[in-house]
């Protein structure tokens, strides 16, 4: 028997596979296809203090082995997520992770505070790739001091474990991870999308209305693996890895690089069954490569 279970702060996972934030809504749509209780956990779409309507469309574009998105954090606001979405997800008895976003440190605090009052919320994922309106639009996620500050402030107001989601658009990912570790985070999730652009030859304008968008999908997997490998070498925080995962073999590659668990984003759009299929296939792949458990594979490339 291959042991797929993983214990991380706040997360008792029966398997290490969960849908990534923003690629699964609040689970309703995918629950048409399968029983979500097979998932290791679920990460919800970003929550902000109040409702957000997001960016103008087009919001997505296709690229080679990837896609760009600039949804712009559209969500009904934390109160309605708590009132309407979490109760729906609760029925599947899997750990629920809330993705928290904001334009100011205060907004992060407010959202996190409200969410941590939800009885059975397993963890918070801090989405620090949002532009900080107060600091002139600079992202929290690319400045180690700002990232540490928001981590510290959110940790102070919440009782649930806090995972901070790293942006790959930085010169030194290890420096970011260390600053966030020192600020008291319980874990890391990585990577968020790489900033990219596509230009429409017909209109001669950036195809995405927001001009730039976040690149996701298999195209970015080598960058994700590299960053997880580097961060694993220099911090001891648990890592939920993501970026281009499509198969159980990809999951094993993330585990070897140092991830403790993984999230699957873009691949859900190609195949709504991708998460359960990976979960079913993972024990076979682990066994084929000589592992008895997910835990044993984690960090394997560092030994």
């Amino acid at each position, binding site marked *: 028997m291959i042991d797929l279970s993983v214990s991380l702060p706040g997360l008792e996972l029966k398997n290490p596979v969960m849908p990534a934030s923003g*690629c699964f809504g609040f689970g309703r749509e995918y629950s048409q296809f399968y029983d979500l209780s097979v998932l290791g956990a679920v990460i919800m779409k970003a929550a902000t203090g109040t409702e957000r309507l997001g960016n103008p469309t087009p*919001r*997505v*574009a296709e690229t080679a082995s990837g896609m760009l*998105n600039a949804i712009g954090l559209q969500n009904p606001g934390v109160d309605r997520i708590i009132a309407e979405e979490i109760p729906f997800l609760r029925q599947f008895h899997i750990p629920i992770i809330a993705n928290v976003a904001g334009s100011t440190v205060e907004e992060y605090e407010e959202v996190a505070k409200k969410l941590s009052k939800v009885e059975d919320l397993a963890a918070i994922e801090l989405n620090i790739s949002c532009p900080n309106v107060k600091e002139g639009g600079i992202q929290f996620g690319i400045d180690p001091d700002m990232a540490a500050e928001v981590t510290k402030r959110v940790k102070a107001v919440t009782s649930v474990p806090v995972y901070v989601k790293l942006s790959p658009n930085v010169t030194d990912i290890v420096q970011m991870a260390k600053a966030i570790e020192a600020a008291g985070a319980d874990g890391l999730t990585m990577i968020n999308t790489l900033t990219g652009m596509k230009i429409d030859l017909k209109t001669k304008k950036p195809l995405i209305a927001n001009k730039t968008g976040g690149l996701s999908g298999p195209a970015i997997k080598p960058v994700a693996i590299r960053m997880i490998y580097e961060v694993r070498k220099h911090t001891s925080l648990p890592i939920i890895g993501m970026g281009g995962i499509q198969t159980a073999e990809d999951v094993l590659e993330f585990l070897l690089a140092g991830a403790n668990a993984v999230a699957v984003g873009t691949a859900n*759009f*190609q195949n709504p*069954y991708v998460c359960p299929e990976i979960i079913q296939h993972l024990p076979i792949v682990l066994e084929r490569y000589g592992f008895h458990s997910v835990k044993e594979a984690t960090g394997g490339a560092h030994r």
Partner: protein
Amino acid sequence: MIKKVYAKIVSIEKIAKETMKMVLENEHISQFAKPGQFVHIKVADHTLRRPISIAETNVETNTFTILFKTVGSGTRRLASYEAGEYLDLLGPNGTGFPLDRVEENDVILLIGGGIGVPPVYFLAKELTRLNVNVHAILGFQSKDYVFYEEEFKQWNDVTIVTDDGSYGKKGFVTDYVHDINGIDRYFACGPLPMLKAVKEELEGVEGYLSFEERMGCGIGACYACVIPTNTKDKYKKICQDGPVLHANEVKL
């Protein structure tokens, strides 16, 4: 209910300039699809699925038809599939044209622009089951792009309009909507500028428009395809709440 299915390609042929007709076999889609709904097709070598409207279903043969224009790399790749191959698709997706408020003897105007014609054709065929008066106005770029005139004629009165007058009447569909008197309800699908013009031209008439937007998931999970509305939620998802929306609820 949306399912992920593998549909066998029964036939594929070119029916007009840059326009392909593909007949597929799949019980689920052919039994459950309603006019205005679409299938979300996985195309080899492409990250994102492609949304294509359902143009016709046949419950006896378990087949359904899609028509598509080869505009970019995805639709060109789709055109290169051959009969006998299988397509991985999700469907039927979205909410189609609402027929519940259609009443006997209603005068109904159908407007299709270019590759917006297929869902309107499916609707035209469905409407024959109801005892209503249907008129169709179909706009195309030019003569070479015209398709399905005969197919529509089986069921309806149909006016063909081309931008350059190379076939049928010359001009835009909106130039001819007032030729039809006492319209109770209209249904339109086509490029956004056409939908805007139709809405304006038929202000006051109850109408439904079918929209397009670049999609991610195609099922309502990713918020890629929203359109601003003046409803309580302030927006609708084209892939789920649409593609057909009430003309008065959308902000164009």
